[in-house]
């Protein structure tokens, strides 16, 4: 049985979702304003049993200590699982993370997308459960690829022995993956670690300098590392199109940019591959993108 987790950048959204106890995916979709997104068969009716709070992509979006403490308490009171999602971290971001960890009860999962986070957990909070996030689990995920042949140029090593050995050495027993373009059911088969898969969106690339986060900055202060922003990514989403270059042969995946990250929406074939891997038991957790996605209705 595959469990369902929901990611939330904005912890305040929990209030609405937990009002009636553990929500189903369909109830979350209605509250969060999702249109009909591609999900594997039967998922809409399943209960959401976990909430992953924070951000995989930007340290500016990490919750405050108060937000985290309240969210962990609320999710725990509902009898549901919780995890802290963390991004690639600068020196300052690592300090912020160190301030958040004391608010997590032993056994809480921390999704690490920075090897420094993995190291910090091992050194200072071995009672927490490290998960290798999808930024650490690398594979070719270019939404423009015209054929599956291109993915074979750089075969992914997520399930390779050397990568598995590093994970084992760091005490990591679960990884998070995206469904890559032209995904096959076998892409999700590990045998070494438990596999979570994100749906219905994968990420292709992220930057540190943030385009939308520069909106309010003076020209000379835009697109710079460590810039201050007004969290414009919580207000706007950018739909990306290559016009005829991408749409002509119909192979480009639907693509959008949220904050500093470029995402693609799963195709029906990719959803089918995820569905098949779930049926095989190779994916034991599906992670749905709650609020940092392409959707445009009132949150």
């Amino acid at each position: 049985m595959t469990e369902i987790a929901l990611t939330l950048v904005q912890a305040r959204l929990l209030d609405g979702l937990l009002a009636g106890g553990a929500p189903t995916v369909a109830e979350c979709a209605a509250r969060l304003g999702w249109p009909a997104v591609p999900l594997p068969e039967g998922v809409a009716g399943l209960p959401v049993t976990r909430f992953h709070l924070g951000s995989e992509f930007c340290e500016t979006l990490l919750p405050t200590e108060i937000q985290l403490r309240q969210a962990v308490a609320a999710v725990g009171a509902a009898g549901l699982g919780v995890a802290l999602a963390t991004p690639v971290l600068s020196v300052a971001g690592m300090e912020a993370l160190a301030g958040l960890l004391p608010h997590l009860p032993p056994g809480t999962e921390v999704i690490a997308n920075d090897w420094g986070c993995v190291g910090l957990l091992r050194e200072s909070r071995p009672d927490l459960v490290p998960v290798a996030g999808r930024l650490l689990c690398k594979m070719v995920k270019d939404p423009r690829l015209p054929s599956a042949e291109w993915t074979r140029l750089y075969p992914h090593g997520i399930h390779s022995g050397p990568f598995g050995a590093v994970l084992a050495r760091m005490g990591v027993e679960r990884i998070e993956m995206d469904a890559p373009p032209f995904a096959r059911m076998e892409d999700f088969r590990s045998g070494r670690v438990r596999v979570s898969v994100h749906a219905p969106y994968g990420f292709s690339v992220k930057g540190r300098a943030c385009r939308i986060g520069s909106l309010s900055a003076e020209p000379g202060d835009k697109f710079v590392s460590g810039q201050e922003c007004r969290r414009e990514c919580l207000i706007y989403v950018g739909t990306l199109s290559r016009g005829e270059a991408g749409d002509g042969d119909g192979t480009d995946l639907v693509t959008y940019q949220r904050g500093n990250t470029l995402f693609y929406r799963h195709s029906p074939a990719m959803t089918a591959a995820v569905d098949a891997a779930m049926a095989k038991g190779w994916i034991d957790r599906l992670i749905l993108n709650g609020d940092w996605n392409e959707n445009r209705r009132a949150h």
Partner: protein
Amino acid sequence: MKIVAPISRVEEAAPMAAAGAGEIYCGIVPADWTDRFRSAGVNRRAFGNLTRYEDLAEVVDIASGHGATVSLVMNAQHYADEQVDVLLDLAGRFAEMGGHALIVGDIGLLARLGERDLPVRLHASSLLAARNAEAAALLGRLGARRIVLPRDVTLDEIAAMAARRPDLEFEAFVLNDGCVFEEGNCHTIHLPGRLGGPICLDRYATGYSRVDGRALDDAEAKALAANDECHDRWLWYRFGCGFSQTPEGLPFGPCGLCALPDMAAAGLAAVKIAGREGPLERKLASVRMVRATLDRLEATGRADAVAAFAQGLRRRPDLCASGYMCYYREVLDRPAPPPQDRAGDDCVSAAADPTLPRAM
């Protein structure tokens, strides 16, 4: 600080070392790899690689004759099991040639190499995206002796990491690499131009929407358009100011020359020039610019004089003043160099140095 600079052909090794590259890096895609895997994926770049083991050995010999060392890139984002086995053999072969270091982009490969007692150093590639001391420490525990920092770190972050991990060497970008996103978190392919090229250069049109479902008002639409206009301009700078150069052949584009005093003060072991696939003339001009700026630093010890010299090299103060050409834009926040330094003849003479390559 050593200058780490790229080559793509044997013939480039001697002039690059003679120009001041203390560490030369290169890639190899040997025929037995392509025969077996049907791809060029030994490293991050499909082009600009050596193709024969004999050539790699010759590069090592040539560099050694000039007092330089050679590092071999194994910096693909990820490798499959069978590829790792081949790369371990290649690492042994490179060590036997007298190779100096392996620049490794896959953490599994790094760990596997670290378990071996090879007489070759391991450098953690910028692909491993170490942006904090804890990440550097972990890579060090796996065997890395040097951390190549991603290009999107700040000078304060560089100093903090180097101070926290004195047991490790650090290297930072100084010229030419124009990635817009983080290379270590880029899961795309540099497609052929007809298919769009690198994704950051592809002709995506962006349509903005509010996530609350409301329509953009006029002020928002104007602000978003103005921001995108700046972004387009920034992209132009990031990609070598339209891949242009001075009449003397000095390349424009991402640059950290003004930051060299900070890097030296932080104790950096090396600075990296990117652009393995570029022409030799561009690479040579890049090495000479860095060498000349380091010489100025050694001669004066003054950060403002170095900044004035560096900004005078290409004689385009307008491009420097924009900040969009800077890796480390924070250097522009400092007081302006004294006029006599800013307009110094040395800058002009360095740019006009007859040993520098001419425009192509």
